[in-house]
């Protein structure tokens, strides 16, 4: 029995032994159905290959078989924590295709809900990522505030998630009585809560040593890889589509773009936490400056008539019937419309062929593109830092796979 053992000893190089392990697709640390094939040398990551596609549901293809207004609830389900953003990207693209101007109140309401959703998305990220790093109580605190946002969504839209609130031309309903006060109270409370999170994490020795100096990717490399959003801003590039391009009510808002310096996991944490405070400020400003007037455009060729008109106006009944059965037709053309999603640039490409259904709906999802930076973050570091980096990268696999 001793002889075979001796031969193994001779053939194996003890200085450099690579072990390939598989993490996921069902692993809590991968934040979704992501599979990582990792080559480890001891504790060091030498190579990592993310394998995706486990929750591919063909949403883009299914959209080709739906009339334009029925696509909205479909695309919401891609990135399931930032549903308002997908709605805005799609509705905005269709509005540009049919050249429909949305009323000022709708612009402000959309901005308000997008920023609430941004806080919501960052809260889910902060809670789950801190959980990965051992700060379990953060999850409960973050989900407490997240629940308040969901309450606000429920109050205005009737749904906590996947609300179908944005419509082509505006929003489906005005905000209800009492929403403004509740939302304002939340916007005032949120910066205090963020201060409490920081008090829990910023002087936490474990959290600091796990995040500082880990997962560094340079600004130039991130730009090459097409990564935008908080990851790019953490590396020191102040690129934010809300400032760069003019859409919704953002030109009238006063907010700052937080940027980091080194581009490590700590900077990513700081940037996102600071963004939550800025988003709460935008929510407050939207409420202060909320214009009076209609909440949806008045073009009956594209927008459903008010329910109350159906029993008195034949024209409204015809429009309602046409819109609900066939939907509206869109003249041939193509539009790429992009907005600042909590994870970077969310682009929506819609190709219209003249029928009542889009010929192609494509989403440029920031998680999908951002996941390419994961190899740069993880290779050369410890396997534990890889998990921290994945949390800080914050991919939503529903958005990656679509």
């Amino acid at each position: 029995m001793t002889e075979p053992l001796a031969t193994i000893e001779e053939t194996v190089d003890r200085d450099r032994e690579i072990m390939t392990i598989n993490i996921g697709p069902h692993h809590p640390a991968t934040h979704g159905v992501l599979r990582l094939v990792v080559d480890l040398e001891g504790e060091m990551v030498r190579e990592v290959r993310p394998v995706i596609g486990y929750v591919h549901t063909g949403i883009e293809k299914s959209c080709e078989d739906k009339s334009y207004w029925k696509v909205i609830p479909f695309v919401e389900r891609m990135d399931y924590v930032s549903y308002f953003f997908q709605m805005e990207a799609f509705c905005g693209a269709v509005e540009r295709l049919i050249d429909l101007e949305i009323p000022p109140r709708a612009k402000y309401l959309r901005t308000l809900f997008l920023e609430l959703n941004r806080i919501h998305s960052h809260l889910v990220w902060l809670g789950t990522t801190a959980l990965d790093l051992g700060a379990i109580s953060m999850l409960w605190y973050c989900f407490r505030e997240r629940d308040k946002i969901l309450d606000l969504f429920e109050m205005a839209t009737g749904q906590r998630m996947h609300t179908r609130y944005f419509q082509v031309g505006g929003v489906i309903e005005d905000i209800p009585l009492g929403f403004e006060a509740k939302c304002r109270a939340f916007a005032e409370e949120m910066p205090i809560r963020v201060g409490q999170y920081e008090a829990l994490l910023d002087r936490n020795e474990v959290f600091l040593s796990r995040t500082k100096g880990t997962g560094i990717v340079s600004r130039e490399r991130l730009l090459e890889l097409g990564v935008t959003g908080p990851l790019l801003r953490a590396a020191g590039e102040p690129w934010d589509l809300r400032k760069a391009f003019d859409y919704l009510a953002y030109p009238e808002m006063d907010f700052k773009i937080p940027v980091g310096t080194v581009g490590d996991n700590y900077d990513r944490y700081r940037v996102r936490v600071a963004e939550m405070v800025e988003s709460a400020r935008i929510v407050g400003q939207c409420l202060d400056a909320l214009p009076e007037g209609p909440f949806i455009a008045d073009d009956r060729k594209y927008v459903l008539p008010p329910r109350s008109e159906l029993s008195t106006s034949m024209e409204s009944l015809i429009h309602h019937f046409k819109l609900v059965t066939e939907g509206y037709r869109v003249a041939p053309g193509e539009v790429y419309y992009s907005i600042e999603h909590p994870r970077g640039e969310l682009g929506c490409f819609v190709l219209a062929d003249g029928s009542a259904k889009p010929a192609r709906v494509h989403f440029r999802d920031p998680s999908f593109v951002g996941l390419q930076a994961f190899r740069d973050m993880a290779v050369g570091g410890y396997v534990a830092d890889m998990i921290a980096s994945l949390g800080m990268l914050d991919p939503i696999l529903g958005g990656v796979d679509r």
Partner: protein
Amino acid sequence: MPDAPGLELIRGEIERDCPAAVLATSFDRAQAALIVDPARVLDVLRWLKQQPGQRYDFLSSLHAADYLPAEPRFAVHYELINRDRVERVRVKAMLADPGSEELPEIDSCVELFPTADAQEREVYDFFGIVFRGHPNLTRILMPDDYVGWPQRRDFPVGGEPVTFTYSEQRYD
């Protein structure tokens, strides 16, 4: 966005350095697009990225579309951003369907824009457009053994029978 005259200026400058690479321009719904010869797409992208004074050096999205029944049928879209001037321009390469089992081909731009890696794989996965020179052109979202190009317009929606346990026989 460059406006319509700005787009023509860009086209004129490209014409000087890469003659006949740009076939047409389009300015529709405030979006500027250069329609390029698919064989010269890398020349145009490199020019837009590296030409001093242009610097469209950020590829924000690469995606494809199927214009069936139009001919040429496929298009690969490159959405470029100039971050200094905050302008977008779309480069569009139209590809004809070579017919039968053959796949349309175009040069890969991974060398110029590493971000295109996953996005070119996605286009290959769904449209069957081959990117010459891509380091690892395999399926990315669909299973490796999948047959067919599901985002093509002639691929039916619902063409995939859902097989549950014990229900396989019914579809045979």
